[in-house]
């Protein structure tokens, strides 16, 4: 089948694309196929560019204007030549289109047995929710297992990009998008956000951690009940660092998108509508679940809700953590 040509050729060519300095590491077999097509197009492009460049430069030198020598008068069109240079590029682009399309479909359709992980993009962090309810700032996956990500956004459009897997998909609020991959070696790979999303866009990265056989399940049970094992304030700090709080709230009193957490608990704050209130457990709980209800004066109502994303015991430990941030 023509379909399998890239895979077959990619395995035959000894110099793998991952050795090329212009492409990142090949984390998956699919990445190898993309690279095969990339290098095919590169070869075609280099050939045609060289053809045009050599002819142009040759003509410039050979036919440069000289005293007393007039331009020749070759025919001003040549039907067969023109048909040839229309038909050849047409055939070439059809070939490129075909491999581009089939390669894309392979990377698009996930196998039935894929492990599903939920992904949420928000300004400016990725959150990965695992089947046991654990939420993590990094993507942990087992080796040699198809993984399907079901992704959505809390706020604006983000772009989920793993260069080593040659996979990318926009993460759009109000709808789900998916990508899938199957990683063949344990290791670590970077995740970027590729759809511009504001101040922290370029810092919105995470890691894919590929666990050796058996390790993924071990990791998952270990982190699953982490919150109940740690002292409350420490568990709260962990959530602060990993669940998207630190992107907008500093703990050193510095300015950011939201008010600093330093000395916040027990502080008297003026709200946008002029009302004054003291920050206590109930206000913090409300600010997490319904962030737009009461906005501190001087800030924009931009925080996404954490309703359904943080459990009650998680909100409790976050409050405990905030209590420790005294001036």
């Amino acid at each position, binding site marked *: 089948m023509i379909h399998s040509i890239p895979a077959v050729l990619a395995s035959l060519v000894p110099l793998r694309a991952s050795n090329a300095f212009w492409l990142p590491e090949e984390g998956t077999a699919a990445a190898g196929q*993309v690279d095969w097509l990339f290098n095919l197009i590169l070869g075609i492009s280099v050939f045609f560019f060289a053809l045009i460049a050599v002819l142009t430069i040759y003509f410039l030198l050979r036919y440069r204007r000289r005293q007393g020598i007039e*331009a020749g008068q070759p025919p001003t*069109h040549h039907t067969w030549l023109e048909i040839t*240079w229309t038909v050849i590029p047409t055939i070439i682009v059809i070939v490129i289109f075909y491999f*581009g399309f089939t390669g894309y479909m392979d990377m698009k359709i996930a196998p039935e047995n894929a492990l599903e992980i939920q992904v949420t993009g928000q300004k400016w962090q990725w959150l990965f929710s695992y089947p046991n309810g654990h939420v993590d700032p990094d993507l942990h996956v087992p080796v040699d297992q198809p993984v399907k990500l079901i992704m959505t956004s809390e706020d604006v459009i983000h772009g989920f990009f793993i*260069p080593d897997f040659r*996979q990318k998909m926009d993460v759009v609020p109000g709808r789900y998008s998916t990508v899938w991959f199957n990683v063949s070696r344990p290791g670590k790979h970077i995740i970027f956000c590729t759809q511009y999303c*504001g101040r922290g866009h370029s810092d919105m990265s995470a890691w894919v951690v590929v666990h050796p056989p058996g390790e993924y399940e071990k990791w998952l049970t270990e982190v699953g009940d982490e919150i109940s094992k740690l002292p409350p304030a420490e568990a709260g700090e962990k959530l602060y660092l990993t669940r998207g709080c630190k992107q907008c709230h500093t703990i050193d009193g510095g300015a950011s998108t939201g008010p600093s957490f330093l000395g916040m608990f027990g502080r008297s704050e003026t709200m946008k509508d002029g009302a004054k209130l003291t920050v206590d457990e109930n206000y913090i709980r409300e600010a997490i679940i319904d962030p737009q209800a009461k906005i501190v004066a001087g800030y924009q109502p931009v925080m996404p809700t954490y309703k359904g994303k943080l459990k009650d015991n998680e909100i409790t430990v976050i409050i405990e953590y905030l209590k420790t941030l005294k001036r």
Partner: protein
Amino acid sequence: MNTVSSPATPAAAEPEHAASYLQDGHGIKSWIMTLDHKRIGVLYLISILAAMFLGGLFAMLIRTELLTPTKTVMEAETYNRVFTLHGAIMIFLFIIPGIPAALGNFVLPLMLGARDVAFPRLNRLSWHLYVIGALFAIYSLIHGGADTGWTFYTPYSTTTTSAVVPIVFGAFILGFSSILTGLNFIVTIHRFRPPGMGWFRMPLFLWALYATAIIQVLATPVLGITLLLLIVERVLGVGIFDPTLGGDPVLFQHFFWFYSHPAVYIMILPAMGVISELVSTFSRKHIFGYKAIAYSSVAIAFLSFLVWGHHMFVSGQSPMANMIFSALTFSVAIPSAVKVFNWVATMYKGSIKMDAPMTYTVAFILLFGIGGLTGLFLGALATDVHLHDTYFVVAHFHYTMMGGVLMAFMGGLHYWWPKIFGRMYNEKLANIASLMIVVGFNITFLSQFIMGSLGMPRRYYNYRPEFESYHQWSTAGAYLQAIGFILVAVYLIHSLRRGRLAPANPWGSATLEWRCASPPPTENFAQQPTAGDPYDLKPLVFDPKLGGFTYRAESAEGVA
């Protein structure tokens, strides 16, 4: 001397200092309220060069910030505004109006041997709208500027707190300016062609402007409506694109690219037209494959409406739509390739002179070649998924728009400069500057291709340290280009007062604009000349006494 001026070139026979359009009226009002297409062309030229300077300044700020992986000179919020303004100013205020409104306005009626465009008042209104649109952009700039990127993607653009509305409204007004120019050109080309100029005797620059005008008139209204909807959502809170209000953010992308993809052909088609004129003139050869070039302009204009979805391969668009848009995208590659082959073939057996316009022409052919070929990586679905929204796209876009459109604009500017201002510039400095620009350009953007295929995403303020050396090369190239452009500004401004007086036809072109004086009188031609083959350069011979070309005595009859 056995050469005399042809009877078909009455203006050339007139004394050099016959009252030109530049002397016809003094004071600011005689310029900003003028109805003369040539003066409007000059006003556009000054405006777009100012926009280019501003956009270039922002480009330098971007490149300076990216010298180091973290903060170099500005905060992230400032950087986001700077790259937005760089894109918006360069696209809406420089590249879109660049060749059609500035060079086209000046040259189009002259190429037709006409007195003016069909609707001079509409033409003036176009420029006034351009200025009003530009003022809105500057207003946004003063009020902190927008931070959305030039693409204004929702829901970011409807929820950010920066000054989005004024700049979007500015782009909305600029759209009308563009529509009116396109309308004017269509009617002028239909109605004002001189005797002897059938459709297939039209200079290819006019074919290109005609194809461009059709896109301007048909596609720009879609942008206008889209931008208006964006303002409606932001100001009135009507849910159109923002999902929290019940809208669909991807709908905006469809609307936006339905205009903005054809818009890249609004930019590149006139550039291709300029190149067709230049490659023939400076090779002293008839253009090769005239009809193929003319038809390919029309084919590109038509196909440009059908490929917008290739900007959205990873947006969540269905795989079926992706497959169709990928296939249609490749179809645009063919007419573009045909043009390149025709230009190269035109040089065959020519008598090629590497004056500045030809240097830019060669730069265009090679750089646009790279721009077009790298488009193949982006048109193919599997590779696009990896390259989308990386520096590869940034580099591809700049190779087509800067390596393509800007090089053609520079070529056209140097080519028609003597006609517009009646003065020659310093040829040696022009060649040095063009070399600096071309070398600097390649250093800037070749490194971006590599970064992009390695996975460096675009619009990044901080970046991973492994990309640092590529960014530094890119910045060094950008500085070299800046020096080149400053040099261009210096010798062009110098030429306005000190340049050698230009002959009517310094390069030996056969199109009609070279038959009137340089600079032309207000009425262009005493009577509309009869057009011949615009690429029959054989009867033109160099006259050292004039410092330019003139018609051979014996062939005068044949030309008329």
